[in-house]
């Protein structure tokens, strides 16, 4: 769930007709002079995703320009929950007569947003509401038929509102509803909503959470990664998001959970499939005393290329003691595509660590064969299991291998990489990859495994070498599904003439070549 800053939220409210305080956004101390000239002595608020800012010293009331500058410098130095404070809001001070609470929320399972209003607002709103239930009303909203102001008046009266405030509040709440619906807010809260001494209803604060799935319709939100991470995105998370954003096939979640750890601490690279199966797998690792460096979920039938990119990203985390993957155990998707993606990543990186995967489900026999046999010359010990081996047994095997690895005095082997130049024939893929063939090798290949294993059947043999049986444009539009057979199967069972290069934007080039 993506959150918006207070100033962004207030801007949306103002666009919807709501009254907000006069304000200026401050990004550096250089903005102080203009701000003080326009607003006078006001209130300075750090723009951060946290509640209880006042207690953290992030809401200040400067008495002079000099004081304003001091507060600005002080706030812009700070980090809150890992996020650097990058902007501040400087607003006019409001003379408050009365405080209320107003919000829109999507309660779980309800097919309509709910308007919540309390005639008592301010901090500790949950307690206020349970103590004074009569001060609250709830109203389910049909976004196609937003109520009119008069419909809210009886509800407001029941919460104890009377007089002129009835009129002001009822129309303000309509603006609130419209703003929430227009921006597809999962939650929009104003606390406090204030009635000023001169009789205006103004939003003194504003918290908006928008629907991640709808962010694509709202470029104006300026959201970098439409996902709840709980911390500012790391470099690796940004790289992973680019992979996900540029490839709609299947889902790839990647969140780093540990950022600094040493070898031997028992922190593993984790590669799950499916939310429920991933949770179950992480629980199993936890039972053996391991932590995961990251959460990763590749599911919903992603292509082999996406699995490959995910594996590269997971394995680029320094100091992991192992690479563990498992889903629920019985996947509907064909597991050998996943196996190929993992093999390609392992062959390119050739890491020194144990690898345990549980690739249960369709095509698991083939998946196990690919993952174990095609990596037997690598530095890593690789074990792969199917649906009849429990995730706990797999976690146990990982534990055993890590302990073995500690005892082993391993000499690092370098391996033959399939890095023949693509000289003779190549075409692009849908994610800016390149498939290429070295015909000098292909011509002597009896297997032509690239053709028989090609998922979409787009290769055929001509003059004893593979060529496309569709146009290169069609291949680049997605007919080439990046199943990786032309490289991974070719290396194991063919003559090593096929190759697919799949850039992972942002990962160091030396890792790839």
């Amino acid at each position: 769930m993506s959150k918006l800053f207070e100033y962004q939220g207030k801007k949306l409210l103002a666009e919807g007709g709501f009254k907000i305080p006069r304000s200026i956004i401050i990004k550096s101390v250089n903005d102080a002079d203009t701000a003080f000239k326009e607003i006078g002595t006001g209130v300075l608020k750090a723009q951060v995703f946290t509640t209880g800012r006042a207690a953290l010293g992030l809401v200040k009331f400067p008495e002079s320009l000099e004081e304003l500058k001091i507060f600005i410098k002080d706030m812009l130095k700070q980090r809150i929950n890992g996020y650097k404070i990058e902007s501040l809001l400087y607003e006019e001070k409001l003379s408050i007569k009365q405080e209320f609470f107003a919000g829109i929320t999507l309660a779980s399972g309800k097919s309509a947003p709910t308007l919540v209003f309390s005639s008592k607002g301010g901090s500790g709103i949950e307690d206020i509401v349970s103590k004074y239930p009569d001060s609250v009303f709830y109203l389910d909203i049909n976004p196609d038929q937003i109520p009119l102001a008069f419909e809210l008046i009886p509800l407001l009266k029941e919460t104890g509102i009377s007089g002129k405030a009835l009129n002001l509040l009822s129309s303000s709440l309509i603006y609130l509803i419209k703003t929430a619906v227009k921006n597809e807010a999962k939650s929009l809260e104003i606390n406090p909503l204030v009635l000023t001494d001169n009789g205006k209803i103004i939003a003194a604060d504003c918290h908006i959470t928008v629907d991640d799935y709808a962010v694509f319709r709202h470029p104006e939100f300026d959201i970098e990664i439409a996902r709840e991470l709980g911390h500012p995105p790391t470099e690796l998370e940004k790289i992973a998001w680019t992979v996900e954003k540029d490839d709609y096939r299947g889902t790839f979640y990647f969140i780093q959970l540990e950022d600094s750890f040493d070898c031997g601490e028992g922190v593993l690279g984790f590669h799950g499939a499916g939310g429920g199966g991933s949770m179950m797998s992480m629980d199993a690792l936890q039972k053996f005393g391991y932590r995961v460096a990251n959460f990763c979920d590749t599911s919903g039938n992603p292509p082999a290329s996406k699995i490959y990119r995910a594996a590269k990203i997971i394995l680029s985390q320094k100091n992991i003691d192992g690479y563990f993957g498992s889903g629920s155990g019985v996947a509907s998707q064909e597991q050998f595509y996943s196996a190929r993606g993992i093999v390609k990543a392992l062959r390119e990186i050739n890491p020194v660590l144990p690898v345990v995967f549980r690739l249960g489900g369709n095509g698991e026999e083939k998946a196990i064969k690919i993952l174990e046999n095609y990596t037997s010359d690598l530095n890593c010990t690789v074990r792969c299991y199917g649906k009849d081996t429990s995730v706990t047994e797999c976690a146990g095997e990982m534990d055993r291998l890590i302990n073995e690895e500690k005892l082993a005095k391993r000499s690092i082997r370098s391996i033959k990489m399939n890095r023949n130049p693509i000289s003779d024939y190549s075409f692009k893929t849908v994610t800016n990859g390149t498939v290429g063939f070295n015909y000098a090798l292909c011509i002597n290949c009896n297997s032509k495994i690239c053709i028989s294993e090609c998922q979409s059947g787009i290769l055929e043999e001509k003059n004893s070498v593979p060529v496309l049986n569709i146009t290169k444009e069609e291949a680049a539009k997605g007919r080439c599904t990046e199943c990786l057979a032309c490289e991974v199967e070719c290396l194991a069972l063919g003559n090593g003439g096929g190759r697919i290069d799949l850039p992972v934007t942002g990962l160091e080039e030396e890792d790839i070549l």
Partner: protein
Amino acid sequence: MSILLEKNKKVLIQGITGREGRARTKLMLDIGTKVVAGVTPGQGGVEVLGVPVYDTVTEAVIINGSIDVTVVFVPAPLVKNAVIEAFASGIKLAVIVPDRVPVYDVMAISRAAEKYGAWFTGPNTLGIMSPGIGILGMIGGNAASVRKWFKSGPVGITSRSGGLTTSTAYYLNKAGIGQSTIVHVGGDSLIGLPHPEIVKLFQEDEDTKLIVLLGEIGGSQEEEVAELLASGKVTKPIVAYVGGRGAKEGTQFSHAGAIIEGNRGTYQGKVDSLRAAGAVVVDDISEIAGEVKKILDKLRIPYVR
């Protein structure tokens, strides 16, 4: 009998010409689901795996007679339009497979469903399977596996996790126990037929003798099932598992959300309310088959049909 998917229901595939639509149509045809038509606007006139493709749902209905179910594979931003089109053409059940459908779109689908007297499962669902009858969606992946892995029997499964849906059914079958219907209700916070609705359908279905409930932290679906059980509206035995025990506490709910939801949604809250209502709750998914067996034995219900 079974729920939601019975013999001879006529099925439409929306988005049949896409990568997923094509692959899953093959699965459904191979397993015997009666797929009569597909729709992809702009591609009317072609055939996919022998299934005729139309530009609109209305055309598909005019030519093939009324259609019972649509299985939707169109990209997430187009789902709302596709499903409402299907409801407006008289289709009463939609299985919405895609992930990442905007929640305001799901709410609009929900209002349309109410208007047209229709139902939907998902979004973000693997679908529905009634072993021996057919599949709506993609459970099982390919027909050969499905025939090998799943048998018809007395257990109804309702699950919030796609992966656990299939694996739990598989492990039950390995223990010799078949299923009436398997439903992945969908992974999103707002879905068409959540656990309590599916459980009510299982209660009415005479072939379902026991219900396996695979829950997760968050939301209130499991608590609502507990209420159905406690109030006597559901009397069939329930074996439940709740995922996410180890997940970090402290998900940031909004104030307004917290005011409405109270303590619903926690692992312990769900487990406690289910147990208090008489459900058997297991700690580990691998214990499900054993608990199911115990109950079936006690009630002298055969494992398969």
